[in-house]
Every structure is written in C-alpha cells, then in structure tokens.
C-alpha cells in the first residue's frame, strides 16, 4: 500500500469504542489546524478543522481538541466503526493564507470487529 516504507504509529481499537489520535504540531505561529483521513489507495480527505481561537470543535462523531500551550492536537472518534480504519493526519496552516499545509507523519487506526 501507499504507506510502505513509512513506519506509522498504529492505534488498534475495538469496534464501538472511542478512539483518540494525538498529534504534536511544530509551528507556534500556525493558527489553523486540520485533520485528514486517508484510506488505502486514496488521497487525504478533510474531516474537521479548528482555528486557534477555539480549543474544541465537534463534528459528526468526531471532536478536535487544541492545546496551544503545548502545541498539541487530538482527534476523538466516538463509537469507532470498521469504516474508520485509515491513516489520520493532522495538519497546520495559516488561516489568512492559502492551503500550504504542513502535514504530520500520520497515525494508522485499525478497528477490530
């Protein structure tokens, strides 16, 4: 698959449990953060975003938490389903600019049926 050669941290979660994926970002000046989901053979897909003036944002079954003090992002997925199995990337950017996004290394989420 596309991740061959890239040793990703892996999170294994039982179906129905909640998942928490963590990410440390690098640039303290970044003010816009995004989570992407990448399934095998596909490109990254936007899940949810958050601006730096917020510390929490909720979507459908997903919640993003932002801690600017320690430059940490997390993605929480409620009631994890087999279709959630994918690689998840956090990304950082500047809201006033264009989408020159800096991606993290990614976390592979494996959902155990």
């Amino acid at each position, binding site marked *: 698959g*596309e991740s061959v050669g890239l*040793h990703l941290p892996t999170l294994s979660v039982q179906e129905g449990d909640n998942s928490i994926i963590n990410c440390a970002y690098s640039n303290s000046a970044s003010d816009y953060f995004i989570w992407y989901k990448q399934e095998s053979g596909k490109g990254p897909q936007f899940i949810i975003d958050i601006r730096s003036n917020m510390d929490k944002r909720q979507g459908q079954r997903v919640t993003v938490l932002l801690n600017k003090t320690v430059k940490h992002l997390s993605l929480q997925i409620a009631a994890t389903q087999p279709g959630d199995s994918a690689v998840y990337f956090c990304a950082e950017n500047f809201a006033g600019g264009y*989408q020159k996004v800096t*991606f993290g290394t990614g976390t592979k989420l494996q959902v155990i049926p």
Partner: protein
Amino acid sequence: EAGVTQFPSHSVIEKGQTVTLRCDPISGHDNLYWYRRVMGKEIKFLLHFVKESKQDESGMPNNRFLAERTGGTYSTLKVQPAELEDSGVYFCASSRTGGTAPLHFGNGTRLTVT
C-alpha cells in the same frame, strides 16, 4: 460534483526517463496544489496555482520538476529526467478561495523510478 482526478494512477519508469502527471481539479476551483509523499516522509507541499499563475513553488525540489496550468484548468507536473529519489505518491488538490477552504485531494499518482 466530480472530485479531483489524477492520471495515471501508477507509473513505472526508468531513471533518466521523463514522466508527466496530470491533474483535473474540481470545476470552479481556482486554487490547485501539488503535494507529494516520498518513501518514509510526510506529505510535502510542492506548489500552488491560482488559476494559471504560480503563486508559490517553494516546495519544488529542483529544476527537474516543471508544473504548468495552461488556461487555468488542468495542471501537469513533469519530471525530467527522473531520479530514483523521485519515487513516491504525487497528490493534486484543489480548493475554493480562502485560507480555510478545505483541500480536496485526488487519489494520487504512484511514481516508481527504477
């Protein structure tokens, strides 16, 4: 709406050959981006077009890479001559105007240089 489409999905070429990747963005998206992931690395920004104009090509690794977007519609990324370290997955993405407009990615072109 139709998504971002990339062609080919896979390409295997020998070192020294030329390869041209194509990207068709979502209709109406003025912004077009190229990103790539080479082996063992993160997805990295290559360049950004607004319509037919290059706005930022700071991520292009060297002058063996040439991107064009004639007419502000589809874009091509040519690698000439290809080197082994160019192997990876090349993603194209498009977006509407605005710093928080979501990126819509294509499925990528997997390039293997042997």
